């Protein structure tokens, strides 16, 4: 049963490996540490925010505010460092505190005002984007030695690839995320909440605390992703990362997490991110395809994976029903 539910993850992994294999058949250049390092480095901010999104979706919720929070964080940090002369680290801490509180606030509203997460985070999306414009409508460049130091930090892989500090940060976030999801009480509560909120409450899951924790975590990771984005471009721009929340959701779903919650793996999201990055890389290598094919392929993959998930649920429910009628479950219950 648990294995059947992890089938989408395996399917995603196979899709990625086969697609990568096909790409390298056409462009042998694509099989290089450079491309692999680029996949990780260029998608670092997306990956970080997608870890938060995985938790939100696992709990059966959604967070539409993440793209705006990234943009806000980037402008906020850029202005603090550029105009107010704060040290980047101080600015980072302030931005993280702010984004975490913002996420926790949305969690509070979702829990205690019983407003659907879609609506609360939609409001959050507008609010954060508006706040970003309020701070600055123009792109703010950052010239601070600290930024140059971080940008200069990378692991040179054999073959010329560079694994940047941000790529390593993303991998750490994924590792910690996977641990939290599978090995902690908080993680178990998230899964329980996504499975069924009422039965979770009956089982003694602290529903309120968990929901607030989930959205605070998503807010925190959005802030961290915003910092990664700021370092990536060494500037803050209020128009940045529009629509990235949808890319993150797509990565989570392609990675095998059920949109209705309760089932999924953090590791799957990483593969989801890599698949999106792979499509983009392929289009750049080809050089004649319209870049909108990225969206089309992602759309097709989403459909395919949602259909696959449905089929698995249907199949496992039938098995469950069969088992119950044969009396196998009676002993277990």
């Amino acid at each position: 049963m648990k294995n059947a539910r992890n089938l989408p993850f395996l399917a995603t992994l196979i899709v990625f490996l086969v697609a990568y294999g096909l790409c390298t058949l056409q462009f042998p250049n694509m099989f290089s540490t450079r491309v692999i390092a680029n996949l990780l480095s260029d998608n670092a901010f997306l990956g970080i925010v997608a870890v938060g999104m995985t938790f939100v979706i696992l709990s059966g919720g959604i967070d539409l505010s993440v793209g705006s929070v990234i943009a806000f964080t980037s402008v906020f940090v850029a202005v603090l460092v550029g105009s107010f002369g704060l040290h980047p680290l101080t600015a980072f801490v302030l931005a993280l505190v702010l984004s975490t509180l913002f996420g926790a606030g949305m969690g509070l509203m979702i829990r205690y005002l019983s407003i659907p997460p879609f609506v609360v985070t939609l409001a959050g999306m507008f609010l954060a984007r508006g706040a970003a414009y309020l701070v600055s409508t123009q792109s703010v460049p950052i010239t601070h030695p600290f930024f140059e130091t971080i940008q200069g930090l990378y692991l040179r892989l054999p073959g010329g690839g560079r694994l940047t500090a941000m790529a390593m940060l993303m991998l750490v976030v994924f590792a910690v995320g996977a641990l939290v999801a599978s090995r902690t009480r908080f993680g178990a509560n998230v899964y329980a909440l996504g499975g069924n909120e009422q039965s979770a409450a009956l089982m003694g899951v602290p529903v309120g605390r968990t929901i607030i924790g989930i959205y605070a975590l998503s807010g925190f990771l959005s802030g961290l992703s915003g910092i990664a984005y700021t370092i990536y471009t060494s500037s803050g721009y209020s128009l940045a990362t529009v629509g990235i929340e949808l890319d993150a959701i797509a990565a989570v779903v392609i990675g095998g997490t059920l949109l209705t919650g309760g089932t999924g793996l953090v590791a799957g999201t990483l593969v989801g991110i890599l698949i999106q990055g792979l499509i983009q890389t392929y289009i750049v290598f080809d050089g004649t395809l319209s870049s909108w094919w990225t969206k089309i392929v992602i759309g097709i993959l989403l459909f395919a994976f949602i259909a696959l998930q449905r089929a698995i649920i249907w199949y496992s429910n039938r098995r469950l029903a069969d088992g119950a009628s044969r009396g196998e479950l009676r002993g277990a219950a």
Partner: protein
Amino acid sequence: MRQVLATIAVAFTLSLASSVSAQSLTVGFSQIGSESGWRAAETTVTKQEAEKRGITLKFADAQQKQENQIKAVRGFIAQGVDAILIAPVVATGWDAVLKEAKEEKIPVILLDRQIDAPDSLYLTAVTSDQVHEGKVAGDWLVKDVGAKDCKVVELQGTTGSSPAINRKKGFEEAIASHANIKIVRSQTGDFTRTKGKEVMESFIKAEGGGKGICAVYAHNDDMAVGAIQAIKEAGLKPGTDIKVVSIDAVPDIFKAMAAGEANATVELTPNMAGPAFEILATYLKDKKEPKKWVQTESKLYTAKDDPMKVYEAKKGLGY
């Protein structure tokens, strides 16, 4: 036998040498997107210019996102292209990826916009000079009206945008020493046809039915097309009663020009890649750094330039 082998070896070397010299360049082009007709035309022209020279062009549309542009440039570097063209979506945030290209010794040429980065990070920037565009338009009017008095109304671009500021500045510089030409009214028409028409209507009303206006200067052709409609609806003849001069040279203005309803337009050429490829070829040949800024020509078109022919030539470019 040895001779035969030697001949084969020579033939082989020769064929190898010729294949190397015939081996075409591969150039990556990271375009902002296709938000305007002009940009679509720039993309088409870039592809045509590459084909003309036998250059393999790798094209990536960034859909208005800088992160996509950076990804594309990194992808080009990973592919080992010979050069990269970038039409940057914003001015900031390019240092890191340009440094990477420089370390791999891949020359980068900026098209159409400048960036906030040390100019050692790129080979050159090919852009138009917006102040000069305004000046060419102003010079045309100065020559056209001669010593007669002329009241000009101005349709500005989006307030605060750099083309609006610069095209205004250039035009004012051109007419500054001619006391007979004066800008009597100036308002923003947001670069759009509808706003251009609305604002022109209000100008005509304010200037006694348009009798006092001798010319309209629009910061782009779209607003000029809107203004032409407003002039016609007020019962006046655009092109004769009120002269129309604008900037961009999109196909529609040539239609109006052929009908005698517009007088002059200054071209913002979509061909930024042509000069870029020329510079690249010279640079790759003798490794001499070119100037850091190459200005494209701002060509003036009037009714004398066979507007219908220009229209036919431009219409297929995707404007």
